[in-house]
């Protein structure tokens, strides 16, 4: 890596540029189409040029209260993000220790990724229906009137939907933890332990700083997977839809570039989130650089 660039660099650079074009082509189409005039449709050619559809989006799409759905999805996404991190990191650590049943759990995790989301969703729906019926039955059997009267369902954003989302984000989180700990140098921990650090101190002051960028990566992964999830949520959401579900419901009626305007807005929001995360990571790096650690070599 000291001499001039090899010929392969230029070839690969071209391939990379083409790849980026492929990646962004559709995004650019959406961007362009969302700026159509009031006559615009969902397909080319473009009809006029204006920010009309953004104004319409701001006023609210169709029948739904888009911003409250937005808020619900945001809350759920954040909860999923936090839980994914605090469940996956310890699980990843546990896998480094080898334990009985680890193979079984590994396959369960993989299975959670494979089973078509619609099936998991129906299963969770069934599960909660059994719970509902049990609660109602008990309430009636024990004559707890207020419960029998007012109880509707245990399903909701932070029960069944949260669980459904976690069954989707946890496998990703764990596999990324595998990637993170792949060839992770145990000598750092040994050194810490030899210096008398407890397990927690070792984790907190040695391991965590090294894997922190990846942990942020897992959080972001969890957030996006949740933010975007449809199939797994559909039968497990209870009575208040998340944003993507409302959007899917809307695609049955919305035939205007409003949906592209929404795409543009969500991309912009994602971009902002990524930028913030990036800023956080670089801040961490700078701090670590000051503390002389070589953490953050890998990036997820």
């Amino acid at each position, binding site marked *: 890596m000291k001499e001039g660039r090899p010929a392969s660099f230029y070839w690969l650079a071209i391939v990379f540029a083409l790849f980026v074009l492929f990646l962004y082509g559709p995004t650019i189409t959406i961007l362009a189409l969302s700026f159509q005039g009031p*006559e615009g*449709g*969902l*397909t*080319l050619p473009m*009809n006029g040029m204006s920010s009309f559809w953004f104004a319409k989006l701001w006023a*609210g799409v*169709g*029948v*739904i209260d888009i911003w409250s759905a937005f808020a619900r999805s945001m809350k759920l996404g954040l909860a999923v993000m936090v839980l994914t991190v605090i469940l996956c990191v310890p699980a990843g650590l546990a896998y480094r220790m080898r334990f009985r049943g680890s193979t079984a759990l590994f396959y369960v995790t993989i299975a959670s990724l494979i089973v078509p989301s619609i099936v998991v969703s*129906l299963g969770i*729906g*069934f599960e*909660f*229906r059994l719970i*509902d019926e049990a609660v109602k039955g008990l309430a009636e059997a024990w004559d707890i009137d207020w419960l029998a*009267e007012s109880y*509707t*369902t245990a*399903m909701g954003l932070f029960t069944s939907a949260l669980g459904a989302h976690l069954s989707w984000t946890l496998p990703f989180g764990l596999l990324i933890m595998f990637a993170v700990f792949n060839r992770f140098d145990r000598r750092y921990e040994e050194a810490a332990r030899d210096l008398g650090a407890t397990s927690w101190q070792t984790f907190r002051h040695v391991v965590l700083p090294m894997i922190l960028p990846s942990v942020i990566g897992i959080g972001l992964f969890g957030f996006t997977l949740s933010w975007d999830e449809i199939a797994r949520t*559909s*039968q497990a*959401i*209870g*009575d*208040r*839809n998340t944003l993507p*579900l*409302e959007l*899917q*419901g*809307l*695609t*049955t*009626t*919305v*035939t205007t570039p409003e949906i592209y305007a929404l795409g543009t807005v969500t991309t912009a929001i994602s971009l902002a989130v990524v930028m913030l995360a990036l800023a956080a990571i670089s801040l961490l790096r700078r701090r670590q650089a000051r503390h002389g650690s070589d953490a953050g070599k890998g990036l997820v």
Partner: protein
Amino acid sequence: MTDRKRTSSSMRFGAGMSRRTVLRGVAAAAGLAAGSKAITGFPAVIAAEPVTLRYLGTAVNQSADIARKVKEDLGIVIEYVPVTTDDVTKRIITQPNSFDLVDSEYFSLKKLLPSGNLQGMSAKRIKHFDKITPVFTKGEIAGKKIGDQGTAPKKVFYLAGATSTKFSPTPTEWITLIPTVYNADTLGIRPDLIKRPITSWKELLNPEFKGKAAILDIPSIGIMDAAMVVEATGQYKYADKGNMTKKEIDLTMKILTDAKKAGQFRAFWKDFNESVNLMASGETVIQSMWSPAVTKVRSQGVACVFQPLQEGYRAWAAGFGVPKTLKGKKLDATYDFINWFMSGWAGAYLNRQGYYAAVLETAKANMEPYEWAYWMEGKPAQKDIKAPDGTVLEKAGTVRDGGSYEARMGGVACWNAVMDENDYMVRKWNEFIAA
């Protein structure tokens, strides 16, 4: 039982008289609002303590205007839960506690009712029940019988008892779904690209339109479209296109499979949006379609016709249902909402989008005569026809595709359906997709 309820609710009304109800009374007295004129019986639940109803359905029938208006009139807050058609049925089965009111299609009833998750609705508490179009109650229009192949609403309209899971062939007090909207579907075409008259369903599978045709990706409906083609070409005559025998399913699916293998279809569409896009972008020139979708394509400046065909229409109907667990104040509010829905304002609103309202009399009172003449009587528009949001749908002078209400609903050949051999049909459909 119902009498007692009525007294108690009017008592409640007397006690909870609010400023809004007084205002409304004044407005009605002054005859200002034609819509509220129709509500004479006092709703059981008034704004004093606002009730929220969770309204599950497809976004097609959920309109912010309706929610706004009913909040104004009754103080009931409607909270829409928009989902896809498939999800409406699934949620009734898997999450019957997640909604207070569902807007579902009649043909799904055969799958929904046996679950026991829906309760029968009392005809006695529906104010305009007697005025519901006979299309639902008797299967006739202007005294004439209409086609009843498939799951015609009259076959699944009545329940044997309030909580029965059996349909009743004869009228009873208990109604499965209170009708909201219905329509008759046919093929949509692009006259600018086809350039010749289309008069028969058989054109759907005409090789001339290879790679430019589409059907609906709902197996039980897609197969009926194919059956219309089969009958149009004279290959076979079905006893009931909406309830085929295994042999008939085989025959129909074979014709569909051959067409698919020959590349006849560009795509199958699943929702309103897709059907509009396929047509507007020129991917397809002929496909089964919904009336408002055709209007939508036209409003984008693309020529599109909802083509009446000699073999008739395939009709559908939707209505309100209530989960079995709903009771007390919420149930009262649901009845109030449904009564309001049938009192005219909502009916007119739906008629203006190209659907048909269940109670025509009250809808008519809420529409301008020129609107009624255009949408319902098949007469040329005297003025520009506008959508509820004020955009121009049709210029003055145009005539609605398919003509008058009676001509269209009278021309129904079959209804969207779930067959007795549904399992077999679904299996065959999966085979067809894999072919």
